[in-house]
């Protein structure tokens, strides 16, 4: 393992050096960043995608560049994948074709003897070793970067640790199946949302089998249907963050589909996070007070949940928070822009020596990931009015 880590570190250095030289001559640095990440392989790709959602610590321009990193890799051939299918699944399948290929897993469409269609998500062979090795390299780089302060005061080790955990979590198909099941049960409450059912009897340690939802990538979806589906997805996120506490943090366009009838399909529970009960209620309380323009009360909520560092300055934070909420609620509610507000909120915490509580980071992540789609499909959506019924019920339950 050690030799592998060193060799890998060398390989990474070579890729980065070439990229660095090209960056000097290129004006399209964002594309270059995406290119480098793809060259570095699956772990870095996942890390980059996840970092791209961390508006709490990563500058917004970098997040937007990273959001363009898509994994589109060749699929593992069916014959090879089939060897990993549990015996029972193999016995009942009458046909299998590749459907999608990501960095960590490939998805196949299978037809069962009884005529049902299933989606079979299979972990790439050897991916756990690759991820372990790359995360070890990344951990060392993070420690070095933090000690040399190359990224300013950014808590590099913590962030890389958290993102690494999220990547590792995507290798755990048992957890993913459980999360998918729970999401499906929770989101029954939101009209027009579908989550594929898990078919337990065919699942194995490397294989997750779900009902196959047809037509996800057919493309023939009208603008109105897209709009309706996107607003439905926003409500689903509100249901998760204000009421259920199990949050799908990865609702990018590859995991969220608008259907021709205006419903929304959510797949891929590989990056879900559970909020604590007190965290969920604090978050709902924060949002309620924010819509009322009560910055002082918002500050109280954050101060009660965030972790104070040695140089924390609660009074400075309170003053900043009052100003931030005032500026956010002065204009009409419909003009409220979530992402800049969030970026300021996290910056304010950092500036005043407070570490944001995960209770706040993950729900906001999930909204931020959805924001790209919202901006594109229904830029005029009123975040606060849509949120309020969920916020109020979240406070009451």
């Amino acid at each position, binding site marked *: 393992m050690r030799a592998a880590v060193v060799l890998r570190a060398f390989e990474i250095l070579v890729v980065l050096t070439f990229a660095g030289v090209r960056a000097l001559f290129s004006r399209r640095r964002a594309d270059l960043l995406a290119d480098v990440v793809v060259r570095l392989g699956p772990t870095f790709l996942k890390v980059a995608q996840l970092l791209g959602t961390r508006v709490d610590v990563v500058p917004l321009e970098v997040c937007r560049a990273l959001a363009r990193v898509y994994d589109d890799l060749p699929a593992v051939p069916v014959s090879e994948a089939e060897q990993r299918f549990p015996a029972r699944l193999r016995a009942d399948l009458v046909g299998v074709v590749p459907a999608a290929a990501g960095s960590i897993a490939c998805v196949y469409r299978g037809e069962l003897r009884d005529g049902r269609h299933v989606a079979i998500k299979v972990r790439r062979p050897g991916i756990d070793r690759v991820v372990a090795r790359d995360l070890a390299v990344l951990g060392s780089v993070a420690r070095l970067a933090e000690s040399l302060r190359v990224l300013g005061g950014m808590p590099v080790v913590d962030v890389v640790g958290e993102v690494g955990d999220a990547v590792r979590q995507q290798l755990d198909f048992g957890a993913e199946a459980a999360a998918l099941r729970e999401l499906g049960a929770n989101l029954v*409450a939101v009209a027009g949302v579908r989550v594929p059912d898990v078919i337990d009897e065919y699942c194995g340690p490397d294989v997750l089998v779900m009902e196959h939802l047809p037509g996800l990538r057919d493309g023939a979806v009208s603008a109105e249907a897209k709009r309706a589906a996107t607003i439905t997805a926003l409500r689903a996120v509100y249901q998760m963050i204000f009421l259920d506490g199990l949050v799908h943090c990865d609702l990018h366009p590859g995991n969220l589909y608008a259907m021709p009838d205006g419903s929304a399909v959510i797949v891929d529970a590989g990056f879900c996070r559970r909020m604590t009960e007190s965290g969920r209620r604090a978050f709902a309380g924060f949002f*309620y007070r924010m*819509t*009322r*323009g*009560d910055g002082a009360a918002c500050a109280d909520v954050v101060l009660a949940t965030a972790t104070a560092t040695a140089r924390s300055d609660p009074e400075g934070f309170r003053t900043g928070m009052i100003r931030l909420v005032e500026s956010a609620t002065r204009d009409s*509610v419909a003009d409220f822009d979530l992402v800049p507000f969030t970026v300021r909120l996290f910056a304010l915490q950092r500036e005043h020596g407070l570490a944001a509580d995960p209770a706040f980071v993950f729900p906001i992540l999930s909204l931020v990931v959805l924001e790209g789609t919202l901006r594109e499909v229904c830029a005029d959506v009123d975040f606060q009015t849509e949120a*309020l*019924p969920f916020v*109020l*019920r979240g*406070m*009451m*339950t």
Partner: protein
Amino acid sequence: MTVDAAPDRSDPLVVPNSQHHVGLSIRGQLTVLFSDGETLDCADVKGLSAVRSAQEITTLPDGRPRIAVTRLMTHFHSNETGLLIQQNPARPNLGVLTGLRPGGAEALLPADVVFEQYLIISLRGRLYLNLDPLVMEAKAITTFPPVGTTFLSRTPTTFYDVAELEGGLYATAAGSAKPRLALASTSVCGSHVTHEIDVPTD
């Protein structure tokens, strides 16, 4: 005490030091939200309201006159839903009226007016109160009391079951109690005066 059947409510000079009892029926949207997602729309709300304005006006740095207004009584009910809204006697219900132009008492109208209300809702055999004020505002009112103008409450307000609050009606903090319902009144308009009594207080 004099009772004036038809005071000129558009005269700014009637604002200071006056007391009004108005009976009104409300048009607009008054919705109660429950924790299980049920919503109750109350369309047939009517009732009584009484306000008294202070004797003294103050002047803002930009020269506009401002006056405090105390709500003496709020009593609204909806026969269809059984909703009854009253004022919480344990807390002051204060408002401010701010003239739009610089000047003295004669510039008190037209005005922006904001009320912060602490209420008791009686519904389905239980009493609820709010700990955050229910803020109702109206812009550029031209009569006082501002019957017929639309009041907006920008955001809903949560209400707690009085029996679950330490201190009951006198509670000022939620402690471990959760809110049990929320009142959203996006736009409320006292549509017509059923009767009115103007009582100058000196």
